[in-house]
């Protein structure tokens, strides 16, 4: 599995478990806008951010809370991959 697939699968699982608890949304498309489809909203995004920070070891600053980073599975995965790359490696 590529890094992207791995990140995407992890995020998809989290979204399905936490925001779609009772409906089977297995076919959630990577390009689907999570806000326009009612899956995420402003408060949902904040708990999602807490999860991303914890599970990928990142700090997501306020100025990054933008549509280009968080509107779809694809956008979130790209953002996470980009962020993980830019975390400086340990000594």
């Amino acid at each position, binding site marked *: 599995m590529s890094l992207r697939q791995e990140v995407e699968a992890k995020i998809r699982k989290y979204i399905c478990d936490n925001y779609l608890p009772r409906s089977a949304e297995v076919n959630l498309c990577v390009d689907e806008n999570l806000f326009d489809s009612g899956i995420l*909203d*402003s408060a949902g995004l904040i708990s999602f951010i807490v999860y991303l920070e914890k599970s990928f070891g990142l700090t997501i600053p306020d100025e990054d809370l933008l549509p280009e980073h968080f509107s779809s599975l694809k956008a979130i995965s790209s953002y996470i991959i980009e962020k993980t790359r830019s975390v400086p490696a340990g000594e």
Partner: protein
Amino acid sequence: MKKCIVWDLDNTLWDGVHLEGDIKVRPEARQVIEALDSRGVLHSIASRGEQELALATLRTTGLLDYFLVPQINWEPKPKNIISISKALQVSLDSIVFVDDDPFELAQVAYMLPEVMTVDAVLTRQLLVHPCFRVEQNTQEAQLRRRFYLDEQARQDAQREYPNRKAFLQSCAMRLTLRPMHKGDLPRVLELMSRTHQLNTTGRVFAEEELVSILNDRRGGFCIKVADLTDRFGGYGTIGAAIVERCDSSWKLHLLAVSCRVLGRGVERAFLASLLDDAGKAGCALALALFRETGRNRAMLALYQMMGFRKCGNCDGEGIAEFSRVTEPPPAIPRWIQVV
């Protein structure tokens, strides 16, 4: 301010031990439940025992309908209190826990220090405790329990739909935006002090300030309130916005939306409609204030996801200005009809 009381049953809500014999509801407990319910305080249960049996007994006392999401089982009470907090979307620091057992009180105080614990012998004092004081009962307060029951019906209905959007569309939400009038005063004050997550600045305007805006003594200021209904019932007045408009400049001083309508795009629809109005009134640029309160990051996210960007640093009171052009107006979620 506290929003919910979680009751133990044996020797707290009633005298006696349910599984061992007859019980009798303590008159002071009944009095507290009835009085605080009418002030908009919610009630729930975290008690050891058998859920079915205890609920059957509660029904005979006439108190069953007061209790939302009762947790009667053999789980630790802190765990049950967390479940109640999640189900009712009431934060732990808004919960009061009443029990007669010093061990249970200490355990909750230790594991969940945000929860206020009260010994059952002090039940009567809850009636006069300042954390339950309300200036004026609003219609929303008297119906608050009803709103939560409607919400339960919504969550149950959601199971019938293949996805979230189909469910939201089926709800037929109608958001009515209208200028605030005098009768809305208690509710607007309540929204400003009770809403935390969906509150852009946390500023509680004084009643006199609101009155002077209503009487048009504060040039350019106006207050819009939002009412919401859906096929399950009415939510009442769920949001308020304080806007200042002067010629072609437009500034949002406060947007507060009840957490009861969290998770369905209502705050987005409200802000989008306000921006749409601003654009139509000839204001090319919209400014919106934000002050971090430690609990309202969702509103910062809302601003930025809707195209607002921070312009300039915080002032001395920690208030930052955000701006966005009003054209094109942001999209209103398609499942919400704004009227």
